[in-house]
């Protein structure tokens, strides 16, 4: 099991990575996870080498949390041949199945049924579970209903993780989704569901580990709703529509600060070590960026490769 | 008198079908209403029953063979002595009842 410190450092690495990337508007927009690191890190902490993680387009945190090489992710996001997907996927499509990160898919709700299929393949193989992270925006999509149903009927080893940041771009949840809480969506399918504070990495980890254990035990799928907050705009090219005081209140719940404070309160962390971890994360992000910058773009003549 | 037992029709969508099983052997007699042969379409079984008594003289299309609608499957007769013709095409068709299930 990951220690409290390991959870914190994983979140710090994600934050530093995205901050480094945020200064680079040269490859179109990006979909940042800032504020939602605890969900990705807490869920990844419940997964092992035989498991596969699938995500929505908002996937940087999940890919890093799953252990995909930061340089390869950065190269992918900047469109380089050395990227995880040879620069072909870009934002929203990061993937490295060999590392247990089956990948992101940028169609909202589009990875849900795929994840059920991955779970079926893993069940057939006889080991591993699939986890699929999706935003609350996907909860209005029919694909979730179909996935919940087929996963329940076939008792698939599937952990559905709703990373609920409250907004579909600019549309507040109250205007788009009737069910409350979103975890209630699982109940008609008799799928166990839990709602946790998605800004609390240990709470996410604990819930994810418990649900994953049930799934591994052959009890079928589970649903985890994590209430999170997105610190940045939907994408780097989207206008901010939220009020300043709402954003300030969200930022006051920063999962990295919260975990650091908790560890300090427990006497597990001092200021010097926290600063050192911050610096390590920053250095790693700079190195990832340097690796990506040094890498080449795909040759235009390779555009027809790997189509069929 | 000799008759031909032909593939009955019309049957929806069917141009040709396959002989599934003969329920009367050559030389055997049958009564009106007896199941003589089962045929198989792409999705159904066609039970062919005799509308009158007779003797099955010669099977032209054994089980597994294909035949088109209206074409002969066998030669039947009123008695077992009448010499068989080389082919059945010129014989009158024996009346049958058939059911597609």
């Amino acid at each position: 099991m990951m220690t409290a410190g390991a959870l914190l450092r994983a979140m710090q690495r994600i934050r530093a990575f995205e901050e480094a990337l945020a200064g680079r508007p040269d490859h179109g927009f990006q979909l940042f996870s800032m504020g939602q690191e605890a969900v990705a890190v807490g869920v990844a902490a419940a997964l092992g080498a035989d498991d596969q993680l699938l995500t929505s387009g908002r996937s940087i945190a999940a890919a890093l949390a799953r252990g995909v090489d930061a340089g390869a992710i950065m190269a992918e996001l900047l469109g380089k041949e050395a990227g995880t997907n040879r620069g072909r996927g870009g934002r929203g499509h990061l993937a490295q199945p060999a590392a247990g990160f089956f990948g992101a898919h940028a169609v909202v709700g589009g990875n849900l049924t795929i994840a059920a299929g991955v779970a079926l393949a893993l069940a057939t193989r006889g080991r591993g579970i699939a986890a699929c992270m999706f935003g609350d925006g996907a909860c209005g999509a029919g694909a979730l209903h179909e996935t919940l149903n087929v996963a329940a009927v076939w008792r698939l080893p599937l952990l559905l993780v709703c990373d609920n940041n409250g907004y579909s771009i600019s549309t507040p949840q109250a205007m788009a989704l009737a069910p409350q809480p979103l975890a209630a969506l699982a109940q008609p399918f008799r799928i166990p569901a839990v709602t946790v504070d998605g800004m609390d990495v240990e709470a996410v980890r604990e819930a994810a580990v418990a649900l994953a254990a049930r799934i591994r035990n052959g009890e079928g799928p589970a649903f985890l709703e994590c209430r999170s907050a997105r610190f940045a705009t939907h994408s780097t090219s989207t206008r901010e529509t939220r009020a300043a005081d709402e954003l300030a209140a969200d930022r006051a719940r920063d999962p990295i600060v919260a975990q650091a404070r908790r560890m300090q309160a427990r006497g597990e962390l001092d200021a010097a070590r926290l600063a050192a971890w911050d610096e390590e994360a920053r250095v790693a992000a700079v190195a990832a960026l340097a690796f990506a910058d040094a890498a080449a773009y795909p040759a235009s003549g390779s555009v027809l490769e790997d189509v069929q | 008198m000799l008759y031909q037992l032909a593939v009955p029709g019309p049957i929806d969508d069917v141009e040709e079908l396959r002989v599934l099983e003969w329920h009367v052997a050559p030389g055997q007699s049958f009564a009106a209403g007896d199941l003589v042969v089962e045929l198989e379409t792409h999705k159904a079984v066609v039970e062919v029953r005799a509308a009158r008594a007779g003797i099955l003289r010669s099977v032209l299309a054994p089980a597994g063979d294909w035949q088109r609608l209206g074409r002969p499957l066998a030669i039947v007769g009123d008695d077992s002595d009448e010499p068989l013709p080389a082919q059945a095409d010129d014989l009158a068709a024996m009346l049958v009842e058939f059911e597609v299930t």
Partner: protein
Amino acid sequence: MSGSAAATRVYFREAIARALSEEMARDPALVLFGQDIGRFGGAYREFTGLFERYGAQRVRDTPVAEAAMIGVGVGAAAAGLRALVSITYMDFLMLGLDPLVNYAAKARYKTGGQLRVPLVVKATAGARGQGVAHSQCIEAWLMSVPGLVVVAPATAADAYGLLKSALRHDGPVLFVDHKRLYPTAGELPAEETLVPFGRARIARGGSDVTIAAHAYTVRVALAAAEELAREGVDCEVIDLRSLAPLDVDTLVMSVARTGALVTVEEGQATCGVGVEVAARVREARDGEPFRVARVAALPAPVSSNPVLEAACLPDAARVGAAVRALLS
């Protein structure tokens, strides 16, 4: 009427069932998904015997949920299995286009070759009295999706051979089985014969006009050709079999001899298969003139009303009229 010693005569559905059974025996990773394909054996009995032989884990009855059926098939295939998803009516393929088009067809490319999706979507197309949402032929929509193979057999042998090729392909394939072909029978070669993608079949040789058709319309074209032969018009009928990739060479060689091309399809003429066929032949003919006409469904929904259905669909009379008009 019995087949020659070298071949077996089978119904169209039996060619499909045999291909599935042989490939399931050959590849234990192959799993089938569909509505009523288990004990029921499929809407056209084309899955007969498979559930009994391979069991519920590999022959899976699904909920009525095409997006999940295709999505699960795609995910399972991408994660190491091989999947066939049966869509009972091609009209319902629309409900599952997202996982097929946005995921399966792009997975290999977008992951830089890390993922492959060995998936076959079998979609039963065509009109047979079932109405506006159970009759469509939308294969032309899918011909333009990079990464997707589209095949549409007209005979039992091609159904068998193309399905086997599809089930061994490491990318997604749309396999179109036209429902009016199910009552038909054909010869299957005694030896296993795979039909490669991108290879058309000359269903009838001729010298006056090239008729390009696929699936059930091959039979329509052949019927028209027989009628036209009595008038002294010698038609060459090309069964496209594979729509993407398209066998342009065979078409071009034929049109080079006949100088006239008539395309026949049960889908719509606008942006249809015939448009692509004509354009590809035109490009390859490099300005050499040839006459061209398209025969397709009329631009109306296909009604379950028998009078209106027949009025909408291409038949031998319309193909004959198009050929006569083109050659006059």
